[in-house]
C-alpha cells in the first residue's frame, strides 16, 4: 500500500496503513499503539463513553447512527456483547478491507476500548470470509495482542478482562446487516431478524444486549480516547465530525481510499483534486456518481459541489452510506450500470420477503432484457411500478415494508437511471441494443 498522498491531515484511522509492516505489533507500538487503551483503562467506562458522545462519532457502517448514543441505549443486563462488523461486501466499498489488513492492532485496540466502555464481556469481530489476508493478519495481531496483555485476562493490569473472537463469514452480503450477522454468529442462516425489537442494543446476540459497530467506527476510538472527544468534534462540521474514509472508484485517475475531514471537502474536490481522485479518466466529464454505495440514489454533475457531510448529502436526496463513491464518466451506459447493481441485489437478497426476493429477480431480468436489446417502452413504467411495489412511494429515505433495508435499496439505481437517463433507455429500445462501448453481444 503506498502512502495516500491525497489524505488531508490529520489522518486518524489511516495514519499507519501505508507503512511497511504496519500490521505488526512492534510498528504499532512505535507509533503510539495501545496508548489509547491504556488511557481508557485508567478512566471509568462512563468517562470513555462520555468522550465518544462528545466526539459525535457517527457510525461508518452505512446508517450513520451516533456511536455514543447507540452505546447508551444498551440494556444494562449482566451479559452484554460487542460485535464489530467487518463483513464489508458492498460493491465498491473497500475501506474496512484496508483497515483490517493495514492496521489490525488499531481495530483490536478500538474493540477493547469499546468493550470496556460498554461493559461487554465478550467481543466478536465478524469478518468477511473472502478477506483471506485480512483474517490472517488480524488473527496474528490478536495473538500478539494477547501476548502483549492488551487482550485477555486483566488487560494491562487494570482488572478488566476481555476475550476477542474473530469469526469469518461464509460469503453472504446480507450477513453485513447487523441482525443477520448476529444470526450468522449464532450459527443460524443469515436471515435478518424482523423488527421490533429494533435494536440489538436491546435484544442482540443470543438474546443479550449487543452493540454492533463497524470496523472504521471502532478504529477511530484509540485516537478519540488519546486526543479527546472534543478534538475529534473540532474536525468536520455540524453532525458530521472527524474524518472519514471514502472509497473512490470508477472512472477516476486515482481510485483508492482517502481519509478526508468531513464536510470540509466537496465531491468535486474528491474526484478532481490531484492529491485525491486526480480527475476523471481521459479528461472526460462526470456523467453521474454514486455518493455512498450501491444502495444510494445517484447524483449528477449538479451535485459535485456538495460537501461530504452526512446531512448535506441526505438533504440532497441520497446518502454517504458506506462511504463508497463511484464515478461514471460519459462513456458509461446507465442501463448497464443499473442492471449490474440490480444483479448484485438479486444475487444477495436473503429470500425472506416476497418483494425483495421476487422483485429483485424480476427487475434484473427486465434490465438485462433492455440492455440486450429486447426492451419495450412500457418496460420503463413496469420497472418504476415494480420498484414502487418494493418501496412504496419511492421516497427518500425509502419507505420500508420488508424485514431489512436491502429490499428498499434495490430501486435506487433503477429509478435514478430512469429518472436521469430516460432517453438512454428509449435508445436501447429503439436501437434494439446498447449504444455504448463495451456492450455485450446481443
Amino acid at each position, binding site marked *: 500500500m503506498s502512502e495516500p498522498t491525497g489524505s488531508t491531515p490529520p489522518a486518524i484511522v489511516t495514519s499507519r496503513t501505508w507503512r511497511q509492516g504496519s500490521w505488526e505489533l512492534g510498528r504499532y507500538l512505535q507509533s503510539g499503539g495501545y496508548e489509547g487503551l491504556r488511557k481508557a483503562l485508567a478512566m471509568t467506562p462512563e468517562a470513555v463513553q462520555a468522550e465518544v458522545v462528545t466526539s459525535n462519532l457517527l457510525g461508518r457502517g452505512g446508517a450513520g447512527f451516533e456511536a455514543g448514543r447507540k452505546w447508551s441505549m444498551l440494556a444494562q443486563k449482566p451479559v452484554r456483547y460487542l460485535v464489530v462488523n467487518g463483513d464489508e461486501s458492498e460493491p465498491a466499498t473497500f475501506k474496512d478491507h484496508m483497515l483490517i489488513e493495514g492496521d489490525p492492532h488499531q481495530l483490536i485496540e478500538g474493540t477493547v476500548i469499546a468493550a470496556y466502555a460498554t461493559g461487554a464481556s465478550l467481543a466478536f469481530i465478524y469478518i468477511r470470509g473472502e478477506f483471506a489476508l485480512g483474517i490472517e493478519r488480524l488473527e496474528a495481531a490478536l495473538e500478539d495482542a494477547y501476548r502483549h496483555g492488551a487482550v485477555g485476562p486483566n488487560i494491562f493490569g487494570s482488572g478488566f478482562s476481555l476475550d476477542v473472537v474473530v469469526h469469518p463469514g461464509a460469503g453472504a452480503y446480507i450477513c453485513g446487516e447487523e441482525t443477520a450477522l448476529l444470526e450468522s454468529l449464532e450459527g443460524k442462516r443469515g436471515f435478518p431478524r*424482523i423488527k421490533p425489537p429494533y435494536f440489538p442494543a436491546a435484544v442482540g446476540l443470543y438474546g443479550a444486549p449487543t452493540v454492533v459497530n463497524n470496523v472504521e467506527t471502532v478504529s477511530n476510538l484509540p485516537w478519540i480516547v488519546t486526543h479527546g472527544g472534543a478534538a475529534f468534534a473540532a474536525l468536520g462540521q455540524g453532525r458530521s465530525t472527524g474524518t472519514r474514509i471514502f472509497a473512490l472508484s470508477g472512472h477516476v485517475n486515482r481510485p483508492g481510499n482517502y481519509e478526508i475531514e468531513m464536510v470540509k471537502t466537496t465531491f468535486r474536490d474528491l474526484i478532481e483534486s490531484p492529491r485525491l481522485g486526480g480527475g476523471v479518466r481521459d479528461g472526460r466529464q462526470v456523467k453521474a456518481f454514486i455518493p455512498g454505495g450501491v444502495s444510494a440514489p445517484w447524483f449528477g454533475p449538479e451535485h459535485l459541489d456538495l460537501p461530504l457531510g452526512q446531512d448535506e448529502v441526505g438533504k440532497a436526496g441520497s446518502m454517504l452510506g458506506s462511504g463508497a463513491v463511484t464515478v461514471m464518466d460519459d462513456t458509461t451506459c446507465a442501463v448497464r450500470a443499473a442492471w449490474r447493481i440490480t444483479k448484485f441485489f438479486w444475487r444477495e*437478497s436473503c429470500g425472506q420477503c416476497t418483494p425483495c426476493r421476487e422483485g429483485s*429477480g424480476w427487475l434484473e431480468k427486465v434490465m438485462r432484457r433492455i440492455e440486450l436489446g429486447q426492451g419495450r417502452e412500457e418496460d420503463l413504467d413496469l420497472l418504476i411500478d415494480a420498484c414502487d411495489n418494493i418501496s412504496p412511494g419511492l421516497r427518500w429515505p425509502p419507505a420500508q*415494508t*420488508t424485514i431489512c433495508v436491502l429490499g428498499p435499496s434495490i430501486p435506487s439505481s433503477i429509478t435514478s437511471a430512469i429518472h436521469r437517463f430516460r432517453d438512454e433507455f428509449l435508445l436501447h429500445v429503439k436501437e434494439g441494443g446498447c449504444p455504448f462501448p463495451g456492450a455485450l453481444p446481443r
Partner: protein
Amino acid sequence: MTDARQPSSVENEEITIQLNGVEVGARPGELIIAAAERAGVYIPRFCYHPRMRSVGMCRMCLVEVKGPRGFALTPACFASVAPGMEILTDSPGVAKAQDGVLEFLLLNHPLDCPVCDKGGECPLQDQTMTYGPGESRFVEEKRHWPKPISISPLVDLDRERCIQCDRCTRFASEIAGDPLINFFGRGDHIEVATFPDRPFASYFSGNTVQICPVGALTASPYRFKARPWDLEQVESTCTTCGVGCRMAVQSSSGRLVRNLGIDVDSVNQGWLCDKGRFSFQAIESPSRRRGPLVRKGESFGEASWQEALRGVAGACSRAASSGGRIAVLGGAHLANEDAYAWARFAKGVLQTDWVDAQLADGLPAELIQGLPRATIDEACSAKAILLVGPDPREELPVLFLRLRSALTSGRTRLVELTPQSTSLSSLAASSLRYLPGEMQSVLRSLLGTRGTAGAELPSAKALEAARVTLGMAPGGAVAGGDGGEGVVVLFGRASLAEPADATAEVVGMIADSMPAARFLHLGRRGNLQGALDAGLAPGMLPGRVSLAAGRERYGSAWEGLPPEKGEDARGIVAAAASGRVDVLFLLGADPLSDFPDRALAKAALERARFVVSIETIRSPSSDHADVVLAASGWAERPGTTTNIEGRVSVVAQKVVPPGTARPDWMIAEELSALLDRPMGFQTLEDIRDEMRRLSPLHRGLGREAFAALAAGDGLVLPLAAAPVTLRPRLVDPMSVPGVGSVDSQGSPSLAGNARAGWDLDSGEEEDASQVKPDTALGDFSWTDRPVADSAPPRDGYSLRLVVSRRLYDAGMAVAESPALAGLAEAVSIRVHPSEIEGLGLHSGDPVAVVCPQGRVTMKALSDASVSKGVALVQFNAVGSSEERVLFGVGRPVHEIRLESR
C-alpha cells in the same frame, strides 16, 4: 402452538382500535391480524399461522397503520394493536401492496393449477382472485426445479410451487421438534430442503402438507386422488389413539381419501400425527372382513348372518345351561354406544363379569377410573407435570405436541420417572431414571420415605430438582410441601416387562402423598376410556360405577347382573389356556399381538371351547376363531368416542361398510334377541337414551350438549354444573386450507353428517345445569391399592428389559395402511454402546439374547440414551415374534444376557 390464538370470548377486550374508521374492541398485545379477524375483517396472509410464531416473511398481510409520520404499511401478522391505533385494511395503498405481493409471488410460480392437487382449495389461487392482479406483467422465463422430489416416504416436494412461507419448516422445528427440513440457498433460489441422507422422518410430517398454502408439499397417499369439488367431508374424531384429535374426514366417490386436522383448542389445535392421518387406508385392506365366517373343519366358510349368529347364540346358551364360563376381551376400539351395548349384553344378558377392554397391557381399571382427573389443558398449564409412563410421542403423539409446546413456552415444567429417556427428556426439569424393578424405590427416595435399600437411585441433585419442581418440601417430606397442588400426573405403562401392579403401586403412592394432584391416564388405545366408562372391565358398570354399587340400579333395568366380580384379561387368558372358558368373545381384540405373553394367549385361543371374533380386519387371533363376525369400523358407522380426558366427541360415518359388515351394537342386539333377552336397541338413539337415563356419568348429555359436541370441542364428562355453552370456532381458511373449501364447494354431504347427531331424539331432557359433577362421578373410588411383588436383587451380568411401544409397529393400523407399513422398524434390541463393545460387536450386528425361557437372535443397536444395565425392546415390532419369548406377564422383572453368536 403459541398463545397467539386466544379463546374467542369478548369479555377480555380492553382496548379499542379504529379499524377502517370503525371502532372495534381488541385485546392488549394482540396481533392486528387476529384482532381484525375477530372483528370480521379478514386480512389476507400466507406465512402467518395462528399456532406458530409470526415471521412476517410473505408481506401479504400489509395494512396501513397511522404513526407519527402518517399512515405506513405494516405487517398485520407482526404488529400488535395499541389503544386508539388507526388501521386501514382497504385503502388504495393497501390494495396496491396486496396486488404487488401477489404479482411477485406469481412471477416464479408455475402454471400448474390444472394438475396441482391444491387447485380448488389453494390460498394462492383464492387470494389472487380476491386481491391480486388480473394478469401478470412477467414475460421472462420462470425459475425451474425438477418436479417433485420425495423428502420422505409420505411427503413430496415441488419446489417450483413453493412460496417460501416458512410454515413447513417452522412447524417441523418449532412444533414437532424435528428440525429435518430447512431453507437452503438464498434469494429467489431459496428452496426447502432436507439434510443429505436424512429424510423428513417425522411422526408429524403430514401437518406440513396440511398447512402448506400452495401445492408444494403433497402427501403421497393423496396425490392425484381427488379434487376439492368432488370431495365430501364430515367432522369426526380420530380413534387411532386416545388423544381424540378432531379431523375432517374426506371422501371421493364413496372412498376415504384424506383426513385433515381441525383446530380444536382444547385437544389437537389443528394437528394430527401421521398414523392418525393416514391409517384410514386400512379400511380398504384386502384383509378387511366383509361378512360372517363360520369354521368348517380346518378352514372358514362364508355364512349368512343368521347362521353365524345362531351358532354364537347356541354356544352361549349351551355354556349358560351347563354353568360354563363366557368371557369378553376387547372393546377399546368401539364407539361409546357399541361399548355400552356390549357391556349390557355381557353383564346384563350373558351375566358374565369376565369382561376386559384391556389385554393385560394397561393398568387396573379401578386405578384409571378412580383418580381425580385432569384434562390436557390442565396438564399443559399445570405448575408441574409428573410423567410416570411411556414416551407420549410414541403412544399419544399429539399429546406430545401439546406437552412440548407447554414446556418450550415455559407454561409448565416436567419431572419424569421413567426407565428410559423420552422425547420430552431434553425439556424436563428433572429426569429420574430407574432400573426396571426399582420404580417404587426411586419414588420412595423422591418422597423421602424408607424402602430404597439396594436400589440404584438418581443423584441427590436430580431428586432435589424434582422436589422443587413438584412443590415438595426439601428432602421430600410430605408435610411442608403443597400436597401436589397444581401438579398433574401423567401415568401409564412405561414397560410391558414390568407388571401393571408396580405402576399401580407407584401411582397409588403418589396419590397418597400428593392429595391435591390430578391425574391424566396415558391410555393408548382409541376409545379405552369410553369402553371403561361403558363398564367393559371386571367389577365395573357404565358410568364409572362399581358392580357392587350399581347392582340395584342396573340390576333392575337390565334384569340381571353377574353375581360377582370377574377376572381381568390376565385371568381370562389364563383360564382359557387351562380350558376353563367356554365362549370367548374377541371384541376387536387380538390377544396374539397385544397380550404380553404370546404363548399363553395362543394356548387360550386354542383351548377356549368356542371363540367368536368380531373384527373389521383379519387378525392373527381370529385364525383360531369358530365364528368371525364382520363389524363396521371407523368412518363406517356413526357414534361417539371418549378420549383420555373423558372428552366425548363425535365419530362420524363417511362411507358405507363393505359387504354386510354391521355395527357392533347391532350384533349385540341381535344376539340378545336370539337368546330371548332382547335389549330393545333399534337405533343409536335408543342406546344413548338408556345411557343418559342410567349412567350417572352420561346424565345431562341432552340436546344442547350434543349440539356442542358436534360443533365444538366435545364435552368432558362428567359435565360441569355450568350450562353447556357453544363457543363459536373461528375457522381461518388459511389454518387448514382444504377444510373450508371442501365445505363451500365440495359435494353436499349426506352420510353421517356430524351435525345430525344424538340431539334429534325426543327422549326426556335433563338440563345440564342441574347435573352435579359429584353425582356424575358416581359411587366409584379407587381404594384397593395393589402392592407389587418386589424385584429380586440385581445380577451384575444381566440386563433388565424395558419393553415399550413405538408409534409404528406390526399392529393393523400400520401394517394394513400401505402408506405407513414401510415405516415400522424390524425387531431389535437397544443397549448402551458399552454393552455391544463389550461383546466385540458393532451396532447392527445380530446378537443372541439369552433368558430363562430360551435364546433368540436379533439385531443389536447401540444407543447412548439407554441406561447401562437396561435393554430396550420394541413391543410388537415387525418381522418377528421372537422378542415375546423374553418376557411374559406377572414377573417383577425380566433379565436377559447378550452373547455374541
